[in-house]
């Protein structure tokens, strides 16, 4: 049934740190690379060498310019994939039962053998996280690398999503957001993890950590030790009147 489970034992998801994401797209491509021969149909590409190259991806990275009222414009790089919402409209809207949320870990998946490719789930997703594969005609979405995180054919340490493993800035964290003690939950706690479009009522599991405030602390030599040596400014005292004193202290 595509009705949502009453609750899920765990809430596996990603926590993405916008403070360090440099927009390098490593997570995007490693996701494509793992998943195109992983769960479900291949992530096909149309006109791959043609005029309108486009294909199915499960993770995409935007670049935004954010302009505060009182400071220069800044840039924030922004990865976007399925948030594995607790209250996932994409699941309840699915007429076939292909879309479902796993009761054990909350991962939202598409059972591609049942999918009729109506696209309704993508319409219902506020986050553009679902893409219809144009070759297989089924709906593709982030699987949270379900074929990695539990995969006994992979070494323990590699049982994490491909995007998390690849991210060169370690901006992506994977874990159980149901467990308050988990590293991801603590990150969310300490860094003030954010929901995307909370007003949509989807209750996303994935969280985003905000960019830290840009620091430009006031600082001057006057406020520092060694200031006693500071050149009065007048050259009269000799080129660098602090020098001899400083050298004396060297002994």
């Amino acid at each position: 049934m595509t009705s949502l489970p009453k609750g899920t034992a765990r809430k596996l998801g990603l926590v993405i740190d916008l403070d360090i994401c440099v927009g390098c797209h490593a997570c995007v491509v490693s996701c494509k690379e793992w998943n195109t021969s992983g769960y479900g149909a291949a992530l096909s590409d149309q006109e791959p060498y043609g005029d309108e190259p486009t294909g199915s991806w499960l993770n995409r990275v935007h670049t935004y310019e954010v302009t505060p009222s009182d400071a220069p414009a800044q840039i924030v790089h922004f990865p976007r994939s399925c948030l594995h919402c607790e209250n996932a409209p994409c699941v309840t809207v699915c007429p076939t039962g292909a879309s479902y949320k796993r009761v054990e870990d909350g991962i939202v998946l598409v059972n591609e053998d049942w999918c009729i490719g109506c696209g309704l789930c993508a319409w219902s997703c506020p986050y553009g996280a679902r893409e219809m594969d144009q070759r297989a005609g089924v709906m593709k979405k982030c699987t949270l690398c379900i074929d990695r995180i539990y995969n006994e054919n992979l070494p323990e340490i590699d049982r994490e999503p491909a995007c998390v493993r690849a991210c060169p800035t370690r901006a992506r964290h994977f874990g159980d957001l149901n467990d308050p003690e988990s590293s991801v939950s603590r990150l969310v706690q300490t860094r003030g993890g954010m929901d995307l479009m909370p007003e949509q009522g989807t209750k996303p599991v994935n969280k985003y950590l905000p960019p830290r405030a840009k620091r430009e602390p006031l600082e001057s030599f006057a406020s520092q030790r060694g200031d006693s040596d500071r050149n009065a400014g007048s050259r009269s005292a000799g080129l660098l009147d602090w020098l001899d004193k400083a050298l004396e202290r060297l002994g």
Partner: protein
Amino acid sequence: MHPAASVIFFTTASGAGYGMLVLLGALAPSGLLPTDRWFGGVALALALGLVTAGLLSSTFHLHHPERAWRAFSQWRSAWLSREGVLACLTYAPAVLFAASWLYFEALSGVWGPITAGMAILTIYSTSMIYASLKTIPRWHHGLVPPVYLIIGLASGAVWLVAVAAGVGEIPGLLLYVALAGIASAAALKLLYWRSVDAAAPSSSPGTATALGHIGTVRQLEAPHTVDNWVMREMGFSIARKHIRKLRRITVVLGFAVPFVVLGGLAAGSLPELPAALLAVVSVSVGVVAERWLFFAEARHVVALYYGRVSV
């Protein structure tokens, strides 16, 4: 939203078909419509034909129509499923209603009203497929189901008028029902437009990215340099001037022209069949325009990630 021809035909055709079934099922048994087999036969055939054609075309936009049967399974949660189930269930009373009318010539009985009721539910569930989508503010609106219903009824009525004109003369009541339907359809649609045009956006690039607290958010670079499926499907948007033009077409052909023509008929000042057919053509084109706009004007919140400042 990308206006898919198959879906537009589906909603308009089946809408009119179910509208006819509603009127036939509700009015015929109490003798408020012509009771002769000719009228009944043609009207029911046309109604079920429109419904069936619509339903079939709705499967065209599926990538896996061969699995369409699975779509009946989720009636507990999914409106598309409910719509499918109801659409199919409706055939049962409709067929029995037709049989009782055409074969036993026993019009009175439960099947007419039941057919009418089921038809109403079906149109309603069709409308709810769209109205239930929070992601598309212009669809997630209280007036969407009533508009779907009333437009279905109005266009259905106009069709019935034509049928009646074809097989005999048009009963006055039917004309007044049609006129009333058209008038209220127009009223509701205009009301709907005013309200959605005025609606304050619920989401913004700021809430979409959760970066609004820092400053105004603007996309500098998209994740890909060619539109992907999401953009083609949900990023669709049309220019203001086109919108205005199409709204005019809707009002004129969908409501004004049919209203005047039927009004003329009521006044007995027009040749029945040609006028009725004109009304049918006009209302159909108008409703298709209305439905095309319903999609084309609808903006999905995902567009906020792709540079739209509001939806």
